């Protein structure tokens, strides 16, 4: 069976791969959106924390024998800790200044982290084994889907839903939304906003590290694995509307799918399509699809 002259198998196959990529975009842009909402900082280092998550999993595995499942929990916590230290020591000094300072500061962290890992491990990358339990494949009829990729989608969706639940349904989430909306007033109500900001940054980069561990068996663990991905993630966040949590997740998955389809019809264009969508969305809705316009 063909659709627009393309075998439906190929179409569904690319759709599945698009959903896998979209899962990474969703988790990464979710973290970026939370950080931007509370800190009003565009975290340029997000891709570096993604890479750091993958490297922590890799190092924990090769030096300490920590397996994938433990790394999936430990690496995000370690990276969250590093992120919180960075926020506490450096990032909080640029709040309230021109946004360019936050951008430069987080970008400088990218250079330091990527440079450091390049010196230590080289640029070529390290293989990270797929966990044994997920080495099989599922026959979907139209394609053979590796179990691990199915797991990536399930884990990403679960993490996004859990994050949504914490933000929308818990007291901590109410503090977070309050601080996002009016941080000064929230402090005047007796809520420790500086601590909340530190925790938010930790949670945001922890999400990036979680995505990094998920990515480790699929991509080679290498120092620049974050930079290539994060450019698309920035486009996703801009399309979804900066600071919109729901928008980040939906746009992330949606653009993964759009990319997948583009690969079927005109594969040379698949790495550009996201930016074309970004331009079109910004022309029609300058605040992004789910963003609130000021005023």
């Amino acid at each position: 069976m063909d659709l627009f002259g393309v075998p439906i198998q190929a179409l569904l196959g690319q759709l599945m791969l698009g959903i896998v990529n979209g899962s990474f975009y969703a988790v990464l842009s979710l973290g970026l959106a939370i950080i931007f909402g509370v800190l009003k900082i565009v975290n340029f280092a997000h891709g570096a924390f993604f890479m750091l998550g993958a490297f922590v999993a890799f190092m924990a595995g090769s030096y300490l024998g920590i397996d994938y499942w433990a790394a999936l929990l430990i690496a995000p916590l370690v990276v969250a800790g590093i992120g919180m230290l960075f926020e506490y020591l450096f990032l909080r000094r640029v709040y309230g200044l021109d946004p360019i300072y936050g951008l430069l500061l987080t970008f400088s962290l990218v250079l330091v982290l990527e440079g450091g890992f390049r010196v230590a491990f080289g640029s070529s990358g390290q293989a990270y084994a797929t966990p044994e339990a997920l080495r099989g494949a599922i026959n979907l009829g139209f394609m053979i889907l590796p179990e691990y990729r199915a797991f990536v989608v399930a884990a990403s969706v679960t993490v996004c839903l859990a994050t949504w639940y914490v933000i929308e349904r818990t007291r901590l989430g109410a503090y977070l939304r309050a601080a996002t909306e009016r941080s000064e007033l929230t402090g005047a109500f007796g809520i420790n906003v500086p601590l909340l900001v530190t925790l938010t940054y930790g949670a945001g980069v922890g999400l990036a590290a979680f995505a990094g561990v998920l990515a480790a068996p699929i991509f080679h663990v290498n120092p620049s694995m974050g930079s290539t991905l994060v450019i698309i993630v920035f486009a996703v966040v801009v399309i979804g509307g900066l600071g919109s949590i729901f928008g980040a997740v939906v746009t992330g998955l949606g653009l993964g799918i759009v990319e997948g389809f583009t690969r079927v019809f005109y594969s040379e264009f698949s790495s550009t399509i996201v930016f074309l969508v970004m331009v079109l969305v910004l022309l029609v809705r300058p605040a992004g699809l789910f963003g609130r316009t000021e005023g």
Partner: protein
Amino acid sequence: MPETARAHASGVDAAEPMLRIENLHAWYGESHVLHGVNVDVHPGEVVTLLGRNGAGKSTTLKSIMGIMPRREGSIRIQGEETIARPAHRIARCGVAFCPEDRGIYATLNVAENLELPPPVRPDGLSTDEVLALFPNLQGRLRSAGSKLSGGEQQMLAIGRILRTGARLLLLDEPTEGLAPSIVSQIGDTIRKLKEQGYTILLVEQNVRFAMTVADRYFILDQGRITDAHDKASFEDNFESLMASLGV
């Protein structure tokens, strides 16, 4: 009262004011907006700050809460110096703020708005007691904060700080833009709170409203206290005060 007992035990004067502001200066960026404000408020009093627009009334309240970019001088709450503390630690001294724009969060529903400030003293009102005080809020707990009318938002803003157990309330123009029936309901609430021993520092443009609740008055002009009156002297000088306030 454990507070009084502690005050006596530590040898602090029992007449220690609830709030004592001395030589308070505050700045927005380069602009120096308060020039040495002195105000004291005693336990159980309702004190009103009056003054023209831009005189520094709201700035004084924001300075007390620690949400001005820069402030200097001395602000003691129940004898504790708070000038160097961050906002969240000032709130924990038992002072709560109801801002001029009411500060209702649009992204939080009514229940979340109400329960946002953590209790700072044990004897705050429960959510049910707040709803009994402001029946208009009943049945609206799941509505978004932005869906409330102005009057309902004001009730939510006052109810929210009563839950914390704070005994010193800073109210910034609680009657602004509200219908007369709501204004009288707010007035009843303030009198009820006063009967229960709350201390209130009120900023008001509506002088006639202020006169129904206030014990004492401070007049602010260009960031300085220029005049102070008790109830009797305020009424005696009513005409000239109204003229000088431009109302």
